[in-house]
């Protein structure tokens, strides 16, 4: 009979959360560091353009967090970004770079706008889910196409999704421009206003905060559960980590990436919908750039649902603060895109350093050596330990 002591449940439980937090800390810190670097670099750009960065950033901060309305506005701006960022994360976990979030959001917004402009007199609890479903289906299809194309033909998703973005814009422009369609208003380049029963209800009087934020947070929990607590999520993560290992384990790569892209597009479609039937009350046919911002959200959130929520809030704060910055400090709000670019650049650079360090540590451990951080950072080559003296 085996008498080996088993690790007690209590012991494991006590250690796990702590080690988890400690393990996540460098990631969180490096994301924050990336944002700090981006703000610094953005400050240099502002200074070079002949303005003073500090008051600009103060205005940015006030616009994002200074008071009830500012915070509500930050949440409003964060809503589509969280959904889009979750979409990016799901695709990334499967090893795909979904640059087509923009097109998926456009079609999601368009279909939600059309469904919400239609007025058959349905009650809220039927009509609103219907509008959201329309957006999810539209976005899902637009995500599934590049997924299935990659699975069947190997066509690179970055190229196909870029093309699908422009096709989505075309579809949107064509539909919105139709004079014979009662659901659209070509002169305004928008759909007709959403009926009340198909709009996301307002959460806070005197602000623009709508129920979309609840949808986004719910989606984050669902995505987390799906990725880390279901077989489907396990398959997605396995495929993303190693296509070969997944095949060896009997996981169908093609089916998994196609479904992951479907889910990714679905989430992005909902992201487009919350802006249309939550914020604006109708869908406007303009290039929003939300899809590109969502990519940054996914990258900064490290493709982790919780991280994506945090990153979404951060970028929501940037977007809402930028309006104040423009009005009070006279800094064009397009600086936000510059900041976004800097965030992406520093995140990708930091990720490389982290990977490098990790592999150095693993190499030293594998060779039975102690990891000397100072020597590593000084760039000294790894030296094998001298062989133990032979005793005869």
């Amino acid at each position, binding site marked *: 009979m085996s008498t080996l002591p088993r690790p007690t449940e209590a012991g494991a439980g006590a250690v796990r959360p702590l080690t988890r937090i400690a393990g996540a800390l460098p990631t969180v810190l490096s994301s924050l560091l990336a944002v700090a670097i981006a703000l610094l670099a953005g400050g240099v*750009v502002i200074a070079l*353009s*002949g*303005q003073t960065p500090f008051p600009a950033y103060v205005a940015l901060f006030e616009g994002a967090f200074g008071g009830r309305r500012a915070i509500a506005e930050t949440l409003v701006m964060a809503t589509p970004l969280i959904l889009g960022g979750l979409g990016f994360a799901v695709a990334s976990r499967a090893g795909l*770079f979904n*640059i087509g979030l923009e097109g998926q959001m456009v079609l999601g917004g368009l279909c939600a706008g059309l469904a919400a402009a239609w007025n058959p007199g349905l009650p809220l609890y039927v009509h609103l889910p219907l509008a959201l479903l329309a957006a999810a289906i539209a976005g899902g299809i637009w995500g599934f196409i590049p997924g299935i*194309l990659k699975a*069947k*033909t*190997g*066509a*690179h998703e*970055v*190229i*196909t999704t*870029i*093309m*699908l973005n*422009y*096709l989505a814009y*075309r579809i949107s*422009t*064509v539909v919105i421009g139709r004079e014979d369609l009662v659901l659209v208003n070509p002169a305004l380049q928008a759909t007709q206003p959403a009926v009340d029963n198909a709009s996301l209800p307002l959460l806070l009087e005197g602000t623009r905060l709508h129920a979309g934020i609840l949808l986004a947070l719910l989606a984050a929990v669902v995505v987390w559960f799906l990725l880390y607590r279901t077989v489907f999520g396990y398959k997605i993560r396995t495929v993303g980590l190693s296509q070969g290992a997944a095949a060896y384990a009997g996981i169908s790569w093609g089916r998994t990436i196609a479904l992951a892209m479907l889910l990714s597009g679905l989430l992005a479609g909902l992201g487009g919908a919350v802006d249309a039937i939550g914020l604006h009350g109708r869908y406007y046919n303009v*290039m929003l*750039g939300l899809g*590109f911002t969502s*990519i*940054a959200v996914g*990258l900064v959130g490290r493709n982790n649902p919780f991280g994506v929520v945090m990153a979404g809030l951060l970028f929501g704060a940037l977007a809402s603060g930028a309006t104040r910055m423009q009005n009070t400090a006279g*800094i*064009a709000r*397009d*600086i*936000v*895109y*510059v*900041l*976004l*670019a*800097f965030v*992406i*650049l520093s*995140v*990708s*650079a930091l*990720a*490389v350093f982290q990977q490098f360090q990790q592999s150095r540590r693993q190499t030293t451990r594998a060779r039975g050596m102690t990891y000397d951080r100072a020597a590593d950072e000084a760039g000294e080559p790894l030296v094998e330990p001298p062989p133990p003296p032979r005793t005869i």
Partner: protein
Amino acid sequence: MLSFFSVALLTATLRSAAPLIFAAMGGLLSERSGVTNIALEGLMLMGAFAAVAGTYFSGSPFVGLAVAIVVGALGGFVFAFWSVTLRADQIVAGTAIVLLGLGLTSFLTEQVWGQAGSSPPVERLPTIGLGMNVLLPVAFLLVPITHWFLFKTKPGLRVQACGEKPEAAQAVGIDVGKYRYAMVIASGVLASVGGAYLSIGDLSQFTTNMTAGRGFIALAAVIFGNWMPWAAMGAALLFGFAQALRFHVQALGLPINQDIIIALPYLLTLIAVTGLLRKSTPPAGLGRHATEG
């Protein structure tokens, strides 16, 4: 009457294709050396802005063009630093360059000229007749030059080696990083000149996001042309023809849906990368570093 429209349609096609050819030849060089280049769109925008800014402050469009070349080289250098030296994900870095191009140019437009959306008008590059400017023949000259460089010169063949099998290139002593840097910087310069073509060649001012996806269409032309210079030019001409046709459909009374024509480049590229028409063969080492498997 018909011949008038034919000439107008022909020149409009050439005019629409030229900026695409500039950016496509840049993208082709970069991808042939193994660096995936979705940054073209951002680099084109930077060039379009730099050309107008340079012209505005100096009064000469040729100085503007020179500024665009310098800015394009700088943009290419940043992209190369990330994708070659730092070995960051090339698509992530490319996305950042696109956003940087969009953000910097629209931000600076408002900060420099105090109005959102567009710059004041500036002087244009001289024309050579029929609304074509001096850069147009340069674009078409670039095609044989690119072909000659890639297939007939030693450095060009080395560039291809870097793109097809970086480990092997490294093993025979080719400095893969150096060649990739050179090609990515060249792509920055060419895309930037393509942008300048739009802002101080075709038009005479900068407007926010004026490239409107032409960088991505140029990338599509590279892929549709299967990474071959002449074929990429053909694709650029086809896409340019689609753009030009938009404005002539009504005048010619052609029974073609305008929306389908506008969507044509995207649809064709989508079909091309799936290999349904013919096999699409990107450089084998695209996106891979020299020291990984």
